């Protein structure tokens, strides 16, 4: 199941691990991405708080944790090739994987249709 935030992160939930990245809309707004600063494995991150930084040729933006949990893995491929976020934002350009401390937090997020409607309204 995939959820979305109003800050343009997506989160894929599979069993008790979630994968997080930024949406195609977000990468389009940022332009060419040149660097991604990922959290450390083992870091505890909190819903709505800073988790990563994505830097494009024109801006540097914070990526917020869509839910609370512990970072279990980060996407090493982004170090070598940050442009993956542009070419495959919702697939190979994922940022990090994390545990899910409170599944209830997911209820506050949007589903695909909800996010589409949200973006259309922007």
């Amino acid at each position: 199941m995939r959820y979305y935030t109003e800050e343009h992160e997506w989160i894929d939930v599979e069993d008790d691990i979630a994968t997080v990245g930024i949406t195609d809309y977000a990468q389009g707004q940022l332009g060419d991405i040149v660097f991604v600063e990922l959290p450390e494995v083992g870091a505890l991150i909190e819903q709505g708080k800073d988790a990563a930084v994505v830097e494009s040729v024109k801006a540097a933006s914070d990526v917020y944790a869509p839910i609370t949990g512990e970072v279990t893995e980060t996407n090493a491929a982004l170090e070598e090739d940050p442009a993956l976020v542009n070419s495959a934002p919702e697939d190979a350009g994922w940022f990090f994987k994390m545990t899910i401390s409170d599944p209830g937090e997911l209820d506050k997020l949007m589903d695909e249709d909800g996010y589409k409607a949200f973006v259309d309204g922007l």
Partner: protein
Amino acid sequence: MRYLPLTDNDRQAMLAKISAATIDDLFVDVPEVARLDGPIHGLPMHASEMAVERHMKALAAKNLVAGEVPFFLGAGAYRHHVPASVDTIIQRGEFLTAYTPYQPEIAQGTLQMLFEFQTQVARLYGCAVANASLYDGSTACWEAVAMATRVTKRKRAVLSGALHPHYAQVVKTMAHFTGDTIADALPAITAEPDLAGLMARIDEDTACVVVQYPDILGRISDLAPVAEAAHAKGALLVVVNTEPVALGAIKSPGEMGADIVVGEGQSLGVGLQFGGPYLGLFAVRDPKHVRQMPGRLCGETVDAEGKRGFVLTLSTREQHIRREKATSNICTNSGLCALAFTVHMTLLGERGLRELAAENHRLACLAADRLAKVPGVEVLNNAFFNEFTLMLGGKPAREIVRDLADRGVLGGVSLGRLYPGVEALEHALLVAVTETTTEEDIERLATELEEAVK
């Protein structure tokens, strides 16, 4: 057209907008005793321009001027010869009047200068990358601590007791507002710095350990063991240098494993200038830390036709983009001083810098040998570059410095001045010797010191 910008009505309208009755209401935060409530006592209301000039000249004549008397002051600011060509070049209109000219289309000259500046600083410090300068040595020192807290995600910095106390104070002032913990110490009056004691203070919460090299007492030691001890605890080693000419003679901090190297650049191209403006230098050994660096960075690239050119790069770290999350919010980078540094370094070349360093050290050795022969005077250091510590018998060093000044010699900086009220340090005197010192100056200091310590 009116040349007075505001009328009384304008002022009243602005005051009304912020609900203030009078201009004085804007100064209520200044304690009453510190406010001026009338004319300054003893200052006449009017005098002619000639009379003011005459008065000011008489006041200035009371100063003992660095260039006119035997001069041995250092402690972070050094009197070196600045070739006249440095001033001539930096005053060219293209450099002097062009403020923040960073548009690559029209500012290749300035950008190339910054790139060369960065290259010189990086090579001097033994580092991979240097930035395009900061405000001064002490603020660069704070920036290094702040960067270490970002890199390590820890909030405690350990300062060596032999770090310049003014640098330590700047760090503590800034940390007061960021909430970082700063563990500082007083210097121990010993021939060798207490590196074992310093290493013992590094723990698992330490973001960085900050060491000065040569240190505040002029001592020089191999910092590789400190680098190893810091790295073993996951901390960074920050090395501070206040005399860049020394690095023409001694091993660079980067070679000894320092992660961040910062310092004062005043010695090269910039005069004493009553304490400022000076020039902050900042470099990192490992290129992986470049995105956490503060300040501007100039990079080399190629244009659409494949020709070499220069641009500012990695600007997303900076405050015009990252605002409060920028890697630094100290804005000025003393750009003209950076230009003077680079022009002086370029005129010297690598061989010139080594020769300048050798001459500084030769004269400092002469001075140390001569002063050690003065009864009641001992040289503390085992090793030094162009500045060393004397231990004086008799009166506190601060009084002896005043006595020497009365005899027309600026004899050094007393530790009593740097650490007021610390009795254990009050008999120590820092003596700096540069290529501007003559053998006659040294003899004169020795003779006058002999009288002063009696």
